């Protein structure tokens, strides 16, 4: 099993969710996060005082999938979240040892 973590632009979140649902992803964890990558933040000016706003708001999506699906899910996220502009975000995949469904105690693939 794999954990796919994606950090994307907030306004792309609905598109990504729809695409993942169409593909067959049954659940995900989503959080509002802030951070910055190579684009850094932006500058605001108030009465002549310049402020560097380092952190940019993003959406983080976490999905646990079968090994076979990981590549497709990454592809879907990249395709739907892409605007081609700086600040589109990142997707990464990490191995998952165990998954347990809390309600039934089902383990691993059966729990996804």
């Amino acid at each position, binding site marked *: 099993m794999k954990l796919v973590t994606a950090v994307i632009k907030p306004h792309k979140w609905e598109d990504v969710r729809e695409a993942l649902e169409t593909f067959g992803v049954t659940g995900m964890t989503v959080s509002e996060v802030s951070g910055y990558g190579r684009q850094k933040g932006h500058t*605001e*000016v*108030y*009465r*002549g*005082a*310049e*402020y560097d*706003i380092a952190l940019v708001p993003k959406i983080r999506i976490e999905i646990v999938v079968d090994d076979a699906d990981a590549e497709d899910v990454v592809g879907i996220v990249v395709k739907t979240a892409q605007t081609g502009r700086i600040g589109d975000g990142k997707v990464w995949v990490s191995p998952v040892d165990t998954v347990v469904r809390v309600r039934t105690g089902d383990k691993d693939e059966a729990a996804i």
Partner: protein
Amino acid sequence: MDGYYAFMLIATAFVLMMTVPALALFYGGMSRSKSVLNMMMMSFIAAAIVGILYVAVGWSMGFGGEGTLFANPFELLWLDGVTTDNYIYVMFQMTFAIITAALISGAVADRLKFSAWVVFLPLWALIVYFPLAHMVFSCTEKSLICGRIGAQDYAGGTAVHINAGVAALVLVLLLGKRIGWPKEQMRPHNLTLTMLGAGMLWLGWYGFNVGSIVFADATYSDAQFFSETGRTFANTTLATFGAILGWLLIERLLHGKATSLGAASGIVAGLVAITPAAGAVNISGAVAIGLIAGAVCAWAVSLKYKLGYDDSLDVVGVHLVGGIIGTVLIGVFSTSAGAGGIDGLLYGGGFGSLGDQTLGVLVAVAYSGVLTAIIGLGIKYTIGLRLDEEDEVNGIDLAEHGESAYDLHSGSSGGGKSVLAASTVSTMSTSEGANA
């Protein structure tokens, strides 16, 4: 005369609205979210304290006979001997005292103890504002700025704006910078409140300037009322338009963008500058004063970073600088067709008026500066001015008022924290404990 009386009732209510809530909103929006309530409360409490004190002794110090610095404080004590049909004039002057004191609060954001503000208000009104108001608004031969110097000040460029600006500067120097200033980000937390406040100030300012008409020989005259209110209304409006443009132009040139805060600030800068000049100049003079004030104030608000004083919401950059510009420029743009009947430099009057205006400014700066310093030092070395360091970091709203302006983590269950927010907080405190 009936019309004039009805007009004064409305003008007075308008000027009170300038403090509560217009100034409170204007300043509150520029504060940080952890100190917006304290910022607004400083205006509200100023109204209550200075208002009662004005009725008790302020009116008498202003108009209870003649004097150089102030009139007899006991002549009209608690309005003794003032008939109720004259109360509206007392109330009108009272609202000026209130807003002048409240204006100072913008400079001391986040860090002035509420108790220190409560003690400062009556002392400052009594020792600084009431005398300066007498020197300017009670225009007898003896009164210093209007009578002896002969400086024109229609609605309070000296007594209100220069006075508040100087007091703000002095208080800030005694109080020190906020923790983290100027490195830490202290962005305005809600500029829509600020723009709303600026708009309401503008509306209220018609009461302030237009209501400041004084009749020759204290006798009502239709002719003077109609012509003078038309002039002051138009000047107040046009100077403000000019100042919006002046501020935005400088901003665009220096920083690349015209901002909403710049427009709101331009409004106030223009209104400040036209306050003393509303009766003296014609509409071209008003536009010129507005443009100059907007442009210069837009530059002046950055002085605090160069000179290192934390005038948090730019009381100095807007009110002191704008007040000086408006008061001094009367010496240039004043026309003998105006309320004072004096020609300025531009209309062939020579340098006489310019000299009088400058001297009036210097007297106001010196009087307010020295006496505010004495009051400020007195408070600093008795009950103290400065909030506890930890309280300042956590927010003055919580420390001084026990409240938070915004509850952003509530669920729908009527004020309680959401499950997510509550668990986040406890997780954070646990991990902090683990690190310690």
